[in-house]
């Protein structure tokens, strides 16, 4: 028992590992913030494209479906390998010189955009058709009805599942560490290799948990608030 504690949760190793793992963790946070911002915008765009009406928009809708099907089904690890190790090999200017971290952000963005597109889409579909009809009947165009009436209601409804996906994204930044970005998990691994002690991983886990718990509680709070509001509206 003592040996286990020493190898995985030694107080002295814990203190010793903090600086390196922390510096790695800042990279996780950095990747996460940029990827999340990109995902929010791109996923909304693709969700809107997927909902476009009419025969003329059929090819665009098809592309959006293809995108979400493909990247929702592909493991992040594979996408990350291709982005980080494959893209620079193409030899194009920006890609050749891009850092592994930047390419890792691309991989995270591409995969999570596919998930979040579906979340947005569910939100858009949950807004009753009569809302869009009421907006159109006032003379608002398709785009105006979407922008002022449908999307504000849809986005409000999907904030909890959206935050849930972002918790997943935060943790998955560690996968990028396996492919040459020295973020928290990679730092912990270096620590383990140098000192034959795994406590660095515990340090990394604690950092991630500290980041996730407030977000999880905030999500719970939003869900509870909405339940109360809906119950009040039913009275």
């Amino acid at each position, binding site marked *: 028992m003592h040996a286990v504690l020493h190898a995985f949760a030694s107080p002295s190793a814990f203190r010793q590992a903090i600086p390196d793992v922390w510096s790695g963790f800042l990279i996780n946070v950095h990747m996460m913030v940029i990827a999340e911002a990109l995902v929010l915008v791109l996923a909304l765009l693709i969700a809107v494209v997927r909902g476009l009406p009419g025969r003329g928009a059929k090819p665009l809708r098809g592309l959006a479906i293809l995108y979400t099907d493909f990247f929702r089904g592909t493991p992040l690890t594979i996408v990350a390998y291709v982005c980080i190790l494959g893209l620079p090999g193409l030899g194009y200017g920006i890609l050749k010189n891009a850092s592994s971290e930047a390419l890792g952000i691309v991989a995270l963005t591409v995969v999570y955009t596919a998930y979040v597109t579906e979340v947005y889409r569910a939100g858009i579909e949950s807004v009753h058709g009569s809302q869009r009809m009421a907006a159109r*009947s*006032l*003379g608002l165009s398709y785009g105006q009805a979407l922008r002022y*009436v449908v999307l504000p*209601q849809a986005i409000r409804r999907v904030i909890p599942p959206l935050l849930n996906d972002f918790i997943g994204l935060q943790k998955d930044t560690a996968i990028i560490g396996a492919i040459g970005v020295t973020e928290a998990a990679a730092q912990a691994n270096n620590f383990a290799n140098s000192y034959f002690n795994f406590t660095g991983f515990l340090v990394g886990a604690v950092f991630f948990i500290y980041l996730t718990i407030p977000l999880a509680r905030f999500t719970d709070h939003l869900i509870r608030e909405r339940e109360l509001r809906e119950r009040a509206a039913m009275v």
Partner: protein
Amino acid sequence: MSADANGHAFVSLEGVTKRFGDLEVLRKVDLEVGEHNVVCLIGASGSGKSTLLRCINLLERVDEGEIVVDGQSLTTGKVDVNAVRRKVGIVFQAYNLFPHMTVLQNVMLGPRKVRGLGRGRSEAVARELLGRIGLESKADEYPDRLSGGQQQRVAIVRALAMDPELMLLDEITSALDPQLVSEVLQLVRELSEVGMTMIIATHEMSFAREVADKVCFLDNGVICEQGPPEEIFSNPQEPRTREFLARIIEAGRL
């Protein structure tokens, strides 16, 4: 052709047919509505009243026939759908207020985004209308804080804020508690008094009798009988109209 005391027809429908798949919801409907006139559509649920109104607002496309509003055909050639809707307001049974906007924002949306009025001007229009229905104090509330009758009155002024030339009212009191019906009908009565052209689908027979210049009885997608209210209600010619009204009287609603 019809009883248009005030001259030319503002709205005219000719041979309007609408199908949903194999189901014919409207069959060769002819109807004329004079300017400043009020036409009430009566008939059982599913007789085609709502669909008829939706066709005039272009929320549904007709399969055959022609609809002309204010001299402009809605069914032939290229139609600017949004321009038509600017002139033709519609109010729904379920109010359909926008729940994420305050009452004021609901009423301001059309003037601001469609009529292109500035923020200040739109707000003035909205507050003036809300004042007229006695709900100015509710301007900053969200719709779910209002009673059904209040919500429906807000929905009516939201349509009025577009300054429409024609109002379509689709069973606007059917979802209301009985004690809230009269405040909504009073507002409609006031609109008819100031000369608003209206087509009203309704189950409120005594109200139809009071405000309508013309009553049309729809049955199975066909206008079975139309005429001045006193004729339709007191001396209906068609057996089906008589049967419908007999059932209404039986239910104590006339």
